[in-house]
């Protein structure tokens, strides 16, 4: 039934070319060579020639290798038995559990009809004031964590995952260090969360093409859980590795690069993944938190730049703290009017004053005399950093808001904050 071909015309990088007919675009094939067997996917058809991307890479493939077309596109099994399991980038078990092959579903499916989405309305409480107060995370949000290598982004991701109230956690690791993979697995296990998690892990030593599949597999599975009325949190780390894998393939395919070697469709490719975040009308939801490392701490690098345009905000992780500037949750306005009346005002005022504090710091570092106002700002800024920005702080939102008022009252007169008199009358401590 399946067509079998021998005789590869061209091998370049991970892409092989074979003469074949009746092959569908994006169809899957099995390539058997002395090195073993690998899956491959059709990525171009041209005048009787078929270009295939080999998941295990081109190394060791012989020109007489056997290519068997399977007649379908990439699929993964889906069932409740996925929970607690670890798989690799092509969906094979990475742990010692049994092979699952029931109920295969297509990956990279069509996008959700916007008419079937609803406006997100549930806050995700994290206990981190820089998130809860200033950039509230919302169920079904897609949000990257921008950071440079070496920052504790994986622990932050793990902490949010453990504290957030969700039904299923799906971790997609791309180019993950093996240590980091074990860190996630062990942490989930210790906290009893592994039984509601599915891990799709591509480590740095695995074939690069498998990295490309991780987000699609993870999100296809997430989508199924969400359709079963589950609230799913998808963690992706690190999307820059995914983009780099895409760049590698595009260059091999001799595509014209657009910006720093990345393919012209980088935006569309990233968007196709991030847009899987959804709050379904009459079903569950998918929230996506993704790490995007910024080469050279450069936010204008194509990967963070395109990501920022796609996602609903971003958390900047710098020097072990979530930066108040640049960090943004676009959906916060949907939920922070229902938390507490002073939430929005506190959020804006604290940041505006913190911006003035930064200016004062600059003045101070240039050796200018500090006015009484400057001294007040300095006092304020330091307390803000120590008592709110520190990632070790773990307090509920209401307590964090009270703390903000306390810091304001200890540092300023009500008029100096620019807060509307109505609110200061109610919330200003010792009033």
């Amino acid at each position, binding site marked *: 039934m399946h067509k079998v071909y021998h005789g590869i015309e061209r091998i370049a990088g991970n892409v092989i070319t074979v003469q074949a007919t009746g092959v569908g675009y994006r169809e899957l094939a099995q390539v058997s060579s002395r090195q073993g067997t690998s899956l491959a996917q059709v990525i171009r*058809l041209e*005048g009787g020639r078929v270009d295939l991307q080999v998941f295990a890479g081109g190394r060791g493939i012989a020109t007489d290798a056997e290519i068997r077309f399977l007649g379908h596109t990439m699929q993964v099994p889906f069932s409740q038995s996925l929970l607690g399991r670890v798989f690799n980038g092509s969906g094979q078990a990475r742990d010692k559990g049994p092979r699952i092959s029931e109920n295969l579903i297509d990956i990279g499916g*069509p996008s959700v009809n*916007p008419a079937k989405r609803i406006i997100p309305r549930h806050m995700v409480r994290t206990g981190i004031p820089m998130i809860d107060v200033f950039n509230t995370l919302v169920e079904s949000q897609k949000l990257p964590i921008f950071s440079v290598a070496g920052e504790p982004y994986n622990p932050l991701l793990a902490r949010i995952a453990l504290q957030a109230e969700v039904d299923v956690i799906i971790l997609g690791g791309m180019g993950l260090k093996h240590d980091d993979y074990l860190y996630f697995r062990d942490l989930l296990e210790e906290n009893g969360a592994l039984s509601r998690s599915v891990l799709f892990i591509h480590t740095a030593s695995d074939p690069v093409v498998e990295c490309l599949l991780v987000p699609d597999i993870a999100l296809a599975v997430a989508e199924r859980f969400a359709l079963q009325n589950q609230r799913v949190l998808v963690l992706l780390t690190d999307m820059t590795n995914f983009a780099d894998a895409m760049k590698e393939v595009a260059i091999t395919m001799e595509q014209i690069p657009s910006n720093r070697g990345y393919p012209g469709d980088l935006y569309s490719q990233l968007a196709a993944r991030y847009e899987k975040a959804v709050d379904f009308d009459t079903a569950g939801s998918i929230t996506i938190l993704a790490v995007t490392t910024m080469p050279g701490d450069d936010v204008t690098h194509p990967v963070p730049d395109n990501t920022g345009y796609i996602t*609903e905000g971003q958390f900047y992780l710098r020097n072990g703290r979530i930066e108040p500037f640049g960090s943004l949750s676009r959906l916060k306005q949907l939920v922070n009017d229902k938390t507490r009346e002073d939430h929005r005002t506190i959020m804006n005022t604290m940041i505006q004053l913190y*911006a003035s504090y930064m200016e004062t710091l600059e003045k101070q570092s240039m050796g200018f005399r500090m006015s009484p106002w400057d001294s007040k700002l300095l006092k304020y800024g330091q307390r803000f950093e120590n008592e709110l920005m520190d990632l070790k702080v773990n307090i509920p939102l209401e307590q964090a808001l009270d703390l903000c008022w306390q810091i304001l009252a200890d540092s300023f007169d009500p008029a*100096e904050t620019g807060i509307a008199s109505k609110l200061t009358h109610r919330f200003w401590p010792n009033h």
Partner: protein
Amino acid sequence: MNEKSGTIIGVSGNLLTVEFTKAVVQNEVAYAVTGSRRLKSEVIRIRGTYADLQVFEDTTGLREGDRVEFTGELLAVELGPGLLTQIFDGLQNPLPQLAEQCGFFLQRGVYLDALPRDRSWAFTPTAVAGDRVTAGETLGTVPEGIFQHRIMVPFKLKGALTVERIVGPGDYTVGEPIATLRDADDEPVQVTLMQRWPVKIPIRAYAERLRPSEPLVTKVRIVDTFYPVARGGTYCIPGPFGAGKTVLQQITSRYADVDIVIIAACGERAGEVVETLREFPQLTDPRTGKSLMERTLIICNTSSMPVAAREASVYTAVTIAEYYRQMGLNVLLLADSTSRWAQALREMSGRLEEIPGEEAFPAYLESVIAAFYERGGIVRLKDGSLGSVTIGGTVSPAGGNFEEPVTQSTLKVVGAFHGLSRERSDQRRFPAIDPLDSWSQYPGVVSADQVSFAREMLHAGNDVKQMMKVVGEEGTSIDDFVVFLKSEYLDAVYLQQDAYHDVDGASSAERQRYVFDRIHRMLRCKMSFDDKDGARRFFQRLTQTTRDWNRLEQQSTEFRQIEQQIEQMLAEVSDYA
């Protein structure tokens, strides 16, 4: 079968190479057949007996040898009653109906009628048999929501025609003939409530194009007062991500003083469209008292939907805008974001292996952008009434750097530039339109002299601020320091606006004139202070009071009280008090 067809010989992404035998038309629509599905595509290049087609859908599963059917028609939209309140994708498929048919996910190859075929409309003829008419002239009207929807002589007809027969008042569906016309060759032409028009060709069935001169009030102070938009004008909002482009457009779509708003969500987040389409039906339009949705139409091709349809979506939107303009209405088209559309062009250009221009954008980018914005404008129709299409496009420059090709090509053709700045949004100064860099060529709602004085104040204040970074506060004279404080005050109480506040969020033109006149006087006022701290404290108090003032209804007694309070505060420090 006498249909023209071809055979697929190559597939790369959403680009097909097709071998054909009979003549094909550049930009005609074709369907690639896979199994029972027919995927809509467009011819974009022809070389010898090979045509390159961009497919508006995912191409997974297409094989070499699959059939392609050519239609001979350019990509067109349906125009007629029933467009308003709808939510279409880039190819004018109604999304709610698609959801009914296909469920949660968009299925490829499913195309539905844009206009409901079974709904009937109460038609009232205005033309009578024997009338001489030309394209775009009115034959009758049907009520569509709050508007009288004009049924016009199809735009494609040439020369003068005679009305041979026209139906009497009654209910008709969009497919039923309502009139028969005779053209110059005495051939009969049937007219229905609906007509089709190719999206990439501007509708030109009007008497003349005029110069945009009347301000379009958006109720955003920094826009209306400082960088106004005109009815029939064009403007662009470039800005880095997170600077508030989309929020600004959402506010504009709510408060803008126009008849119809068309939102083209082109390659952006689906969530933002959802906010509009779930919230607008609940909001009341202050002008009509009806639901905001009744004047709104959404074209939505979000970032994960097929790329080629993204390009089509802006043309679909502008064509529908022009159609309503033909009825003497003022239409505002908001395109978010034109960069995504440009990127769609880049993706196709790359697949076609064209020689790339700057940042791999195709060389024709500039002319394509110019042609799009030129479809905005105010026109005098054949019956003497005026209609306008105002186009506002956001631009998402890579890295927030305005020197990139899309921003630069756009700036050449628009009449106003609202540049958003990362610095202002980081400081939570919203709307984050940069008051120093932005510009507008259109007249505003307040006196030009007052505005230019305020702008000078902003520049002077910024100069002092920069200087203070070098010489410090102690090295700055008290006069300069007051200039700085005044400019910061203007920024805080007038340029910044709380979009989420009922009163402050929308400021009418009349209120802007009133408030700006007071603020202008304050800026002109000579003030004396003992020291800088005293000055700073004064302005902090003044800022807080003025912000309270901004939050009060203009008719309320509190508004007067606070106004007096501000006058008093001013009297205490002014030199000649």
